[in-house]
């Protein structure tokens, strides 16, 4: 990609609990204002990659043992997670990590914790409510009690409250109703276009992800196996079959999937 990316991940290795090697040399870049998708099967290491960038790894007893992560030209792989947020990277973790005893509104407000411009916080809160009207209705309920999808809205909204330069989204569409999935992706695109927030998106919904992203990486087993422009990827035969569910004859039905296994070509 270009010479001066916003984020550069260079050949990192990640080890959990000092023994479990999960990422085996991952390199990727997110350009200024870019929207990059990261695809891969379960357990491929997408979340781990995102956590390596935001440095939430340490809280899970993982560490980057090799390689470099740079953000706006500075190394951040040794920085404290809070410091990384202050520099403008916010991650939306998978698994709906809400603060269950906080009300929806308080939860959203924690997102603004490291912001200096406190007077603008109120405005952003309204913005989030306009994105997710359902949350406005439930603003005084503890997030532990709201439905799964509502929780997902809270954590995304919370990340927005931080006004990041780069947002790491880990499966934002998970568990959301189709209508809302569309909305979330619309919001992502809007953020990216209008607010110039760069986005790194780990998604299972490959079809959606490749529709909005401009560039994509595909990950298997802790390695990047394929990358390219979204269009190129969409035309890749394996991607079409394994990620988009399209075969030569068109979309196949779940009912007709047989127990056959065709090996992905990049997996050897």
């Amino acid at each position: 990609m270009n010479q001066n990316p916003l984020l550069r991940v260079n050949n990192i290795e990640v080890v959990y609990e000092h023994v479990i090697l999960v990422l085996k040399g991952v390199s990727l870049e997110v350009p200024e204002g870019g929207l990059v998708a990261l695809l891969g099967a379960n357990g491929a290491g997408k979340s781990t990659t995102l956590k390596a960038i935001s440095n939430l790894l340490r809280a899970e007893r993982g560490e980057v043992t090799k390689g470099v992560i740079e953000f706006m030209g500075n190394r951040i792989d040794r920085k404290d997670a809070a410091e990384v947020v202050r520099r403008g990277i916010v991650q939306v973790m998978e698994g709906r990590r809400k603060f269950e005893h906080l009300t929806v509104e308080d939860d959203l407000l924690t997102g603004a914790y490291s912001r200096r411009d406190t007077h603008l916080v109120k405005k952003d809160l309204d913005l989030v409510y306009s994105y997710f009207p359902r949350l406005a209705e439930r603003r005084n309920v503890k997030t532990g009690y709201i439905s799964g999808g509502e929780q997902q809205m809270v954590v995304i909204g919370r990340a927005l409250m931080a006004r990041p330069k780069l947002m790491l989204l880990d499966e934002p569409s998970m568990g959301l109703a189709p209508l809302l999935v569309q909305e979330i992706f619309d919001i992502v695109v809007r953020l990216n276009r209008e607010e110039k927030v760069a986005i790194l998106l780990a998604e299972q919904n490959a079809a959606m992800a490749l529709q909005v992203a401009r560039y994509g990486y595909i990950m298997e087993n802790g390695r990047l196996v394929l990358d390219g422009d979204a269009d190129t990827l969409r035309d890749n035969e394996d991607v079409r079959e394994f990620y988009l569910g399209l075969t030569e004859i068109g979309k196949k039905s779940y009912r007709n999937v047989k127990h056959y296994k065709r090996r992905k070509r990049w997996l050897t």
Partner: protein
Amino acid sequence: MIFAIEVAIGGLLVGVMYSLVALGFVLIYKSSGVFNFAQGDMTLLAALALVGFLTIFPLWLAILAALVLMIALAIAIEAIVLRPLVARPPLALFMATIGLGFFLQGIGQGIWGTDPKGLDIGISDIPFKIKGLLISQFDLAGGALAGGLVFALVWFFQKSRTGRALRAVSDDHEAALSVGIPLRRAWAISWAIAGLVALVAGIMWGSRLGVQFSLSLIALKALPILILGGIDSIPGAIIAGLVVGASENLAEVFLGPYVGGGIQTFFPYLLALVVLWFKPYGMFGREIIERV
């Protein structure tokens, strides 16, 4: 009847003094989810330090110095104990605080010795009579202090930005990290506040019992208050303190003679069990949210 009232009032006042210790537990639990068994030992250490400083400084300076020490301790605990144990099972942290307790006992007694020391902060403990009831200035001071602390702390947790951040930390510290809340500072702050509370409790109890090892045992009296009021409720600590104080004394005086006495230690636990049966998170504790 007047006797019963007297017993009850005496109990209420002593209950508030226990609440001071219970508050320390609540603070740390509320803000980092750690059940700090070293709270009693922190109380002891604070009192020991204060008495130590009193030999060289005037009272106000000694209190200040002891406070500085407690803050330094909080920072050290964060760096040495909590940080390496981040995201560990709560029980490991609980055990670490038991270890910390031994450690602080050793340090405190090693530096300042094991013999009991008197501590006089100049508030009279001799009661005066109001309408036939004995009330001591000391108890009133204790009550006022506890009340003041509770108001300040409730405000801090519910209204301030840092307070909200601390509550977030206790729910999910990884998620708190992800929104940029610096865990280290959060923990250091909450332990420092708990250190402050320990100092207050240490002063009050130290001047009553003398500064000696047994101060650390007051924690045992604070525990039933804790579960009765709710492990994470600041007002709960005070209210339960009142309930426990009054009821255990009434029980000992009016029930004790029938069963052979000596029941005031476990009576609060029985009371707490009854209440917990109906409200499993104490009178004011927040419930554990279990949604499936």
